[in-house]
């Protein structure tokens, strides 16, 4: 078992590329080696050691590595990018692209996450106790597949375009979401506990379940009647009918 604790040495005002903060990269490394890892700050090349204090206990493979991020990481992007195993615990907020492209392991955040968290994620788990911003579990610009596997849970709210271009996996938002969750979906499941507006649209596959209020419906879904899912009765819609889509939308 290896535990690595990072704390910012001073307030970070310019965004930092944190793709090297990952269990795969930290595992088996000494404090000195982690210090030397590159971390770009804006257009300046710097190191993890320059920006953060690093404490390492024990050593182990990625699956047995725990990273604890204490303090303010709200300007650190791409944490856990491409991670395949291990655990990251974040006590505060983080910047964009948390856990992007991760395929395994677990990231848990006490605070809020900025846009694109879990983008193009293939596996593993993301647990966000606060709120998520835009494009949670979506595909980045131009990408035809967003999230492909794994699970994202948000205890709070999320902003617009949750799971855009999603092709697999599961996103659960306990609170409300912004407009167009599940836009252009081609698989996977989105469960919204609270309210949203204009869910779906351009869906070819995939499932969206809304337990709160849908403020506005896109006129591209066909009402199929009532259906009971997990003991709850929903109105079941299919669409997007314009593209002959087979997406499922359940509204309470």
């Amino acid at each position, binding site marked *: 078992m290896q535990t690595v604790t990072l704390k910012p040495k001073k307030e970070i005002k310019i965004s930092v590329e944190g793709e090297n903060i990952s269990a795969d990269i930290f595992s088996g490394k000494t404090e000195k080696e982690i210090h030397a890892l590159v971390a770009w700050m804006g257009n300046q090349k710097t190191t993890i050691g320059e920006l953060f204090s690093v404490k390492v206990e024990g050593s182990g493979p990625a699956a047995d590595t725990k990273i604890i991020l204490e303090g303010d990481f709200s300007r650190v992007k791409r944490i856990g990018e491409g991670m395949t195993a291990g655990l990251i615990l974040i006590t505060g907020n983080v910047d964009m692209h948390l856990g992007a492209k991760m395929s395994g392991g677990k990231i848990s955040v006490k605070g809020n996450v900025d846009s694109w968290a879990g983008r193009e994620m293939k596996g593993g788990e993301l647990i966000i106790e606060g709120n998520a911003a835009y494009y949670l579990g979506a595909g*980045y*610009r131009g990408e*035809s597949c967003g999230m492909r596997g794994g699970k994202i849970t948000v205890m709070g709210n999320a902003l617009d375009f949750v799971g855009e271009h999603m092709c697999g996996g599961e996103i659960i938002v306990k609170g409300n979401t912004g407009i167009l969750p599940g836009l252009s979906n081609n698989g996977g499941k989105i469960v919204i506990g609270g309210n949203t507006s204009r869910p779906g649209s351009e869906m070819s596959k995939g499932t969206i379940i809304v337990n709160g209020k849908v403020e506005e419906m896109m006129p591209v879904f066909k009402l199929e009647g009532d259906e009971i899912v997990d003991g709850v009765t929903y109105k079941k819609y299919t669409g997007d009918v314009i593209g002959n889509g087979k997406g499922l939308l359940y509204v309470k």
Partner: protein
Amino acid sequence: MELLIKNGAVVDPVNGNKGDKTDISIKDGKIVKTVSSKATIIDAGGRLVMAGGVDAHSHIAGAKVNVGRMMRPEDSRSGISPRTKITRPCTGYTVPNVYAMGYRYAQMGYTTVFEAAQAIMKARHTHEELEEIPIIDKGALTLFGSNWPTMDFVREKDMDKLAAYVSWGLLASRGFGVKCVNPGGGEMWGFGKNVTGIDDVVPGFDVTPKEIIVSLMKVNEMLGLPHSVHLHCNNLGNPGNYKTTLASMELANQVKASKKRQVMHVTHLLFNSWGGTNWGDFESKADEVANFLNNHKNVTGDMGQMIFGSATTMTADGPKQYANAKLLHAKWSNGDVELEDASGVVPIYYVKQISVHAIMWAIGLELALLTKDPYQMLLTTDHPNGGPFVNYSEVIALLMSNKKRQEEIKTVHEAVHAKNKLPGLDRELDFSEIAIMTRAGTAKVLGLLDTKGHLGVGADADISIYDIKPDQIDPTVEHAKIKSAFSSAAYTIKGGNVVVKDGQITATPLGRTYWVDAKVPQQHHDEMMKDIVKKFKNYYSMQLANYMVQDEYLTHQQVVKAGIIPAEVN
């Protein structure tokens, strides 16, 4: 500046060299008989030396290419490398940025590349990009197949006016040759329709694709252009289209070549050699197409080989691209060039386990293996339609090694066993045949064999050296080494400058842009211009005065003279 390449195993089919140790002398950017003792010496150490690669069909610059970049930011992210002291930053895989186009071709040992389709109206954009592509020499073929003036003059059977229009269109676009894409189809797409064969009548113009193709071939030869008509057949991408392809190639017999080359080049034949009637009974007819070529020396073709993985289809064939986007549920961009053409861009991902893709992949290889004369079947991937050009080394290795093909066949959909002849083909190409498909043949088809595609005295000093010793390697077995060597040249020399060493760019001189200045009798030009002026007055949304590409757009131009009036000798 003088350079001497010693101890190279030179493969130069034009000059009959099959790998003998031959020294090559270079002076002032040309290959010469001898150099002085002051020449810089490169010791090739028995490694393979060929003329710089020449690509006769690729999409490297212009409106479509840039639309591909705009609609595929995810592609741009896939090929990023930062700037160095001498190179600019690179992006992209299927639609690289302009710098990457030049660097990556040079890194493969290619020194000349032709953009295969520019609309006259969009030519300024093409040349803006060509000007920024480093190192390689280049040029662009101009689209004439669906232009209103073309169809008017074809209907009026006025070959003098059509020749004058082609001559003027080449000047207006600073184009190198006549490209004809789905003739008539581009116009019909403006009304949501397409032509299905070469005998369909284009409404409003009362001409058929057959008449357009034959007329363009006639004026191409009247003008004595270096390259022949370059045809993208009607019906491309539809099962059963091989019949249209054969009927189109048959038209070549109606016209006599004005030069020692083909009268028709049919491009990316992989997409035109399809049997069956739908995607279910889809099968290869590469054997029929190759058989035609084996019996008709006046037609050449190129493979348009498919590469598994990401590609971006882009073509002036607008209706085809709409069908593709619907079929694939993919992103789609449509373009309309007023009075001239249509276009479309659609990303695609070719998958080994999809039967249609596997059959297509095998068709490309069959074309190359069943066409006896490599001068008639050039190596292309129709970049980026079949796949990005950086994969040429993969195609070379497949053509040189049946072992590699059999290994690949095991990984693709089993349909290739029933629908293709590839599994039973044991032909393995040698270095000379590869040199023809990538250098001598491409240069000959383009009409540039005097200075490109070979290593004889007087040729441009465009040379590539690959890290393999032909007398010590068995390409049929060591295909991995072949692939790696052809993907990254040990040396690329462009115009006498070392531009690549050990796969790394060492210098970035700007190459030249070739275009053809074809003169016609003044009276024909004046008659034709009356029609053009009328078209601009009545239909074009721009002024004639703003239409022509000016000299400012070509800072390093290489003008090739042609035309009905013999060009004066300067």
